[in-house]
């Protein structure tokens, strides 16, 4: 009946994943509700956070027995190897979160809750080390050296761009900028109607189209193709401004 996809361990882990997600969501939403001084919402989310925290802890502890029966080696490595500190940290953080939530210290509870979940995932990885799957070590699964270098560089470079953006998003969200009253959308006095010389734009667009066509479809070299594509994009831009601006002016005039 049991397969590698369907077995007691995977069912327990799946249930644990759902419970921890609910737990995290409830803690975070309770924090947001407290921030907004929504008393009723805060009460209900606090209740849910406590309930889901207890449930997740119960699944985690009870799951140990189930997994022990199914895959003794996994539990053994969790409780005896280098994963043990992570498991202890996770348990303590979980208990601490419950305490913090019951004290309504939501800001700290956020961090404790994420620490609890992160520690149990790290414990799983540590217990498996150095294999990533049974019979496959991390070294065997790794890509060649050049690819790894490229990926590390890409991750670092991406992080340089991504982390500030994420910080910006969180700052805007957590600082409540998105909940502020609406600011005036229009800066008065900016009403300008740029005059567009349609004839010049249109002839430039046609010239671009012809040039792009010739360079892209008649010429054969790659630089000609590049210039031709640029010309075609120029055609789109110029023709767009030649068409849209007068049309919109006309719409505005007939409003």
């Amino acid at each position, binding site marked *: 009946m049991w397969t590698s996809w369907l077995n007691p361990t995977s069912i327990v882990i799946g249930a644990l994943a759902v419970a921890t997600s609910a737990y995290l969501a409830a803690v975070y939403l309770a924090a947001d509700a407290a921030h907004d001084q929504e008393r009723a919402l805060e009460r209900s989310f606090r209740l849910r956070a406590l309930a889901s925290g207890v449930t997740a802890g119960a699944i985690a502890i009870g799951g140990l027995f189930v997994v022990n029966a199914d895959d003794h080696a996994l539990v053994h490595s969790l409780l005896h190897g280098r994963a043990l500190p992570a498991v202890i940290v996770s348990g303590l953080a979980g208990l601490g979160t419950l305490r913090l939530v019951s004290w309504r210290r939501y800001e700290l509870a956020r961090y404790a809750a994420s620490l609890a979940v992160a520690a149990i995932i790290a414990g799983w990885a540590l217990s498996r080390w150095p294999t990533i799957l049974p019979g496959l070590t991390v070294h065997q699964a790794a890509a060649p050296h050049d690819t790894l270098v*490229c990926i590390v560089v890409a991750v670092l470079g991406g992080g340089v761009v991504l982390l500030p953006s994420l910080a910006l998003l969180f700052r805007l969200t957590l600082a409540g900028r998105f909940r502020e009253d609406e600011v005036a959308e229009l800066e008065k006095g900016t009403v300008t109607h740029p005059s567009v010389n349609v004839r010049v734009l249109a002839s430039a667009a046609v010239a671009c189209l012809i040039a792009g066509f010739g360079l*892209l479809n008649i010429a054969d070299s790659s630089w000609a193709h590049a210039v031709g594509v640029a010309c075609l994009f120029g055609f789109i831009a110029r023709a767009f401004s030649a068409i849209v601006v007068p049309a919109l002016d006309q719409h505005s005039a007939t409003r």
Partner: protein
Amino acid sequence: MTPHSIAAAFPPVDQHYLLQARQMQALSFSVHIPLVAFGLSFPAMVLFVEWLGRRRGDELYLTLARRWSKVMLTLFAVGVITGTVLSFEMGLLWPNFTGTFGSVFGLGFTIEGFSFFLEAIFIGIYVYGWRRLSPRAHLLSGIPIVITGITGSLLVIAVNAWMNHPGGFSLRNGKVVNVHPLRALLGNSYLWNELIHMYVAAYVVTGFIVAGCYAFGWLRGRWGRYERTALTVALTFAALASIAQAPIGDWAAREVASTQPVKLAAMEGPIQDDSRSVRAPSRLVSRQPAETCHPDPASALDPRRSQLERDGGGTRLRSGQPAAPGERGALVVPDHGGDRNIVRAPRRLVRRVLDQAKAPARVPVVLSGARFRRTTFGCGADRRLACDRGRPTAVGGLSSNADRRSRHGCARHPCRLRRACPRVPGGSERARLGTPTPRTSPAGPVTRILRPTKGGVGHVSSVATNGVHTRRAHAVHRARRRRPRGRLLAAPSRSRPARTERSRVRTPSNGARVGGEPCLADLRADRLLDLLPQGVRLDHVHSRGAPVHRPPRHPLSRRLLRDAGRGRDAAGIGTHRHAVRTVLDPRPRSHSARRSAASRPTACRSATPPGICGRAGSTRRPS
């Protein structure tokens, strides 16, 4: 490295549920790609409208941009879901491919992941920042969405280009070694035409869909300044992108024609398959039915095949009858299923379209879905009717989609079956991986694994064959130098009986034809995968069921075929049993056409092999 060693490096693919995996992948892509089109182009449109509103101080533009930005966010979210499905499918449906080559192209998805996260962050800021950020900050927060949309698609398309043209690695014992991921992804010549074609197509798709919404509102009587503005902006984007897409599409088609002729043939011709459960993609661009019976990679080399076909004036719908030779079809439905499959489009609608098409402003119309009244997904998507009557605007956008779908949908391979001017340093000898494709029963697997023959490399084709190639190469060359208008834009609908009667028939000279035995030429050491290892498949390039018969090799048959090509005796073409059933044929037909139609069956039997002329007896009356 010989092809044998490469072939030995890959065991034959024996994946369970291969067909289902392909269908699943194709379905996922066809759902995902339109959303990608919105993600690529819609932010720019929204930003433009917002910029206009800020600049003019007009609340209407800001309202429009705000509403569009919500649509943008929703479609992005749906695209995230379908994209996640796709990323799982890469590992779950194609574990061997990802396991073997993941180290080469995985970098692309890594960077694309970052680009996706950035896009998500800034879409959030943009949509939730309306009226909360300062106008300037809000406008600036939209710019990263546009940029990350481009970079994300750049990297995914780079992976696709790499799949079409693998490079940047070597094979040793079936393992990928010596990997240069950046060169593999970004140093790929296939990347640029794919990227630009996709990018412009995204504007076509988004612009027409958005404009269509407001046009629908117009029909319902909603036609204020708001709707007019929205329609103007979206439609202008779409129309201009369509115009630019024509030369870009021609560029891409010529690239495909010179590097992947079989793919071009697969995109253009109706493709047959063994099992009837798989429908061949039908064609967007009409084609002379005669040529569909000679699916020949060599004819796929002809750049003119990528043009939109000319069509005679005064067309009308014929249904239920096989196409006669010499007809220039404009509405073509490949018949996948049972016999006597007539076109199911309501005739009235098609007639209306055609009446419009007679007007001086010829509107290109792409009718999607055969049953317009109750469109079923599977059938409808396959039986796309193309009625092309002029400017290739609408066709361009859709063909890009189909193009991408055909690229993604099946395992792909840079099988350059024959290059435009195949030449090998050894003079007239062409290195050839001649392969009688292993035949299977009609109910057999859909795909064929192309195997090298025992002859393998170095099989020398005859001198006479080579002569044919040279002539063909000249023809290709001439065709590429033709005046551009003829290559790109369909001519006005004027009646050209001489041209419509003429069907260019090519003898499958050395057996290399779509549907037959692909042969590899131009083997080069640096393109290892060109050698077509055993495990790599080429989908959908064989005729259905019937084994390929070469024409008898004696001078008479060739002469007959040539005569047929000149219209003197339209021999036996266009009536293959799988061929096109429904054709908008040019009216009025000339008397010579009638004569040739009447004389066809006999000539067909005598001149062409059964694989080519399956339905010899079905004479079509031009009524």
